[in-house]
Every structure is written in structure tokens, then in C-alpha cells.
């Protein structure tokens, strides 16, 4: 019997809503685990990435670690999917692109309401922020797009089942939403 396709997922600069929407496929997740093997994903809590057939990327690219993780996913996944609005166009996190990074940091850590002990964190373990949040297609080539904030469970299910069956992906009208 051929090995099952390996699927990895990750959340970069997102809110984890797309992963929650993936869980919203409810009992169909039991069918899914019969069809695929999950590699690195928050669902398995596996931290390292193996060679995969499919990688779902939630979230945009906001810091140096996001860039590294995304590049590794591109290297190790045959097919890469922009999963949800932040991965597709930067989404809500990209609203900080209206301001300079210095303005954002000052507001968050120095001047914001309720800030105690003001000061911008500089621990070397904290990934360095990029000047702007970018959608993932501005950093790596992507193969498929799942729009939505988040994509609905049915949209995700349509994609996964049609992809795994080798069919062309076709979303119905109600499955295409940008919000």
C-alpha cells in the first residue's frame, strides 16, 4: 500500500483562526486522518518539518522567524497553500503597514494606554520584526489559495478532498469570501 500523503500546517503571523476553521470540519477530521499523515502541525505538536506533499500556511510574514519557517516549508513541501486572508494578502496584521515600525513599537511598549515599565523588548530570542507584514506570495511561490478570514470549514474540506483525489479545485460561490 502506498504511503499516505504527508500534510504539514503552520501559523505565521495569524490569529490561529484558520486552524480553528480546519478543526470545524468536525467529524470529517476522522476521514482526513485516514487519508493523510500529519507532519509538523499544531494539531500534532510536532516541531520539526519532514518532506511533505502538502503544506498549509496560515498567516502573513511579519518577522525573521516567519521568513525562515516559510522558506523551509517551501523547500520541503511539494505543494504550498496560502491558507486564509493573512497568508493571501497580509490581512489584519498588515494594517500596521500604515505606520512605521518605530511608531508601532512605541505605541505598543511605551506610549500605549495601560503600559507599565515602558521599554521596547530586545531579548535576542524574540524574532526581529520586518518593517512591513507581507502576504506569503511576496516571499515564496505558492500553488493554491484558500481565501477567507478564515476560510470556512466547507471551503477547506472542498480543497482537501479535491486535492487528495487529484481533481481540479472548484469552489462554489458561497465558498469564496475575502472576509
Amino acid at each position, binding site marked *: 500500500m502506498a504511503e499516505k500523503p504527508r500534510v504539514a500546517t503552520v501559523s505565521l503571523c495569524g490569529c490561529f483562526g484558520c486552524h480553528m476553521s480546519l478543526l470545524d470540519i468536525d467529524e470529517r477530521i476522522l476521514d482526513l486522518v485516514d487519508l493523510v499523515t500529519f507532519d509538523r502541525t499544531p494539531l500534532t505538536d510536532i516541531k520539526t518539518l519532514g518532506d511533505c506533499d502538502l503544506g498549509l500556511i496560515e498567516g502573513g510574514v511579519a518577522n525573521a522567524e516567519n521568513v525562515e519557517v516559510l522558506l523551509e516549508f517551501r523547500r520541503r513541501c511539494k505543494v504550498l497553500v496560502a491558507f486564509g486572508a493573512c497568508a*493571501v*494578502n497580509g490581512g489584519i496584521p498588515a494594517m500596521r503597514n500604515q505606520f512605521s515600525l518605530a511608531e508601532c513599537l512605541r505605541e505598543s511598549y511605551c506610549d500605549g494606554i495601560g503600559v507599565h515599565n515602558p521599554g521596547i523588548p530586545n531579548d535576542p530570542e524574540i524574532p526581529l520584526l520586518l518593517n512591513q507584514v507581507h502576504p506569503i506570495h511576496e516571499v515564496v511561490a505558492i500553488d493554491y489559495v484558500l481565501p477567507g478570514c478564515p476560510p470556512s470549514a466547507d471551503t477547506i474540506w472542498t480543497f482537501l478532498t479535491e486535492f487528495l483525489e487529484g481533481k481540479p479545485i472548484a469552489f462554489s460561490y458561497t465558498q469564496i469570501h475575502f*472576509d
Partner: protein
Amino acid sequence: MSKTFKLDGREIPFETGQTIMDAALAAGVYIPHLCHNPELAPHGSCRVCLVDIGERQVSACTAAASEGMEVDSSSETIQATRRAILQMLFVEGNHVCPACEKSGACQLQAVAYYTGMLAPHFTHFFPRRPVDASHPDVVIDFNRCILCELCVRASRDHDGKRVFAISGRGLESHLVIDSPSGLLGDSCFAAADKAAHVCPTGAILPKGRGYETPIGERLYDREPISIVGDVRAHEEEVV
């Protein structure tokens, strides 16, 4: 006997002086559009309504209908070009659909759904644009302006006020407001003006009425714009 032309193989009657768009709308045939509103003079700026006439591509809202012409509005080539135009409109502004209260009743979004646009494809400009909340009844978010000039035309031709104009060239083009401070609150603009009710995106929004319709029940949540029609026709329902 009335004159006709063919639109995607269907005979469309028209009268002299009508554009392809006029005749198509009268016949109940949808051609995607953003800067067109039958109540205002055609503008031909968004190019979303482009159609093939033989070897040429023209904007249906400005091209005159003529006897026997064969118009293609639905080929994959035309849809792909429309998608590219829409993708450029999306990356040139800041269209954050999840954070916009016009979402679900937004014509830009609806036309993008209709053409099958899934992603912006191009590199985002992420321009820095202001929000003008100076007016007591209406807010303008310039991030969402697509320069269709519907508010410009409505204010000038219908309201007789000339509150809006486009200034600058190319990438610097932007909407300006006729007031001493440049702010809407200092202009003669009123919420009852037609210009307050023609914006196809969430750039001009009434204050105090946001998010009235739940997700899933908004204008374009269930049915495409080709069936439901322009947002202006549902103004009272969705604003």
C-alpha cells in the same frame, strides 16, 4: 423593428445612442462594472466592463451599440483580464475585507467573486492613506477608494455641489475634497447627498450604522452580483 446586436450569442435589442452596457442592462444581462451607474454619465475608467468586439477590447459602458455587432463578455480571456484589473485595484489600495463594515455588500468584492478572483496575485503597494472622520454623519476611508469618480460625478451632476475631485497623476492620483481644510467636515457635503450613496466600495460610509447585517445574510453572501445587481439598488437594505 428594433435594431439588435449579439452579446455572448444572445440577441440584445437597442436604440440609437445606447451603449452596449445600457442595452445589456435593459435586457437584464449582467456585464461586470464598478465605475458605471446608469443614473450618472458614463466614465469608462475602471475597465472592468471590457468586452471583445472582434479584435478589439472596449469598455461596454462607453462603446456605442451598433447593428449586428458581435460582443463577447464571458470568455475566459475576458474574465482573466478582468481579474487582473481587479487584482491591481486591490493591491493599489488597502482593502482589508475582514476589517471593513461594507464587506459582504461591497461591489469591488462582489465583482472579484464573480470573476473567480481568489488572491491579489501582484505585490501589494500598502500605500499610506488617511481616514477622514471629520464629518458628523459620514466617514471617508481613502484606503478603499478606487478612483471610480462616482462621488465626483454625483456631487457635480446631481447634487450641484462639486465636493469631490481627483487630484494628482498616475500613482499619485487621489480623491480631494473642496473645503478650506480639505476635510469633509468643513465642506458643504450632507448625508442626504446622492454622492453619499454611490460608492461601490467602503470608502464613503454612513456613521453609526455599521455591521447591522450579520455575516451570512449580507447582500452578496448567498448570491452573486450577476443575480442580485449593484449595491446601489439595495441601498436601503444594506447601508
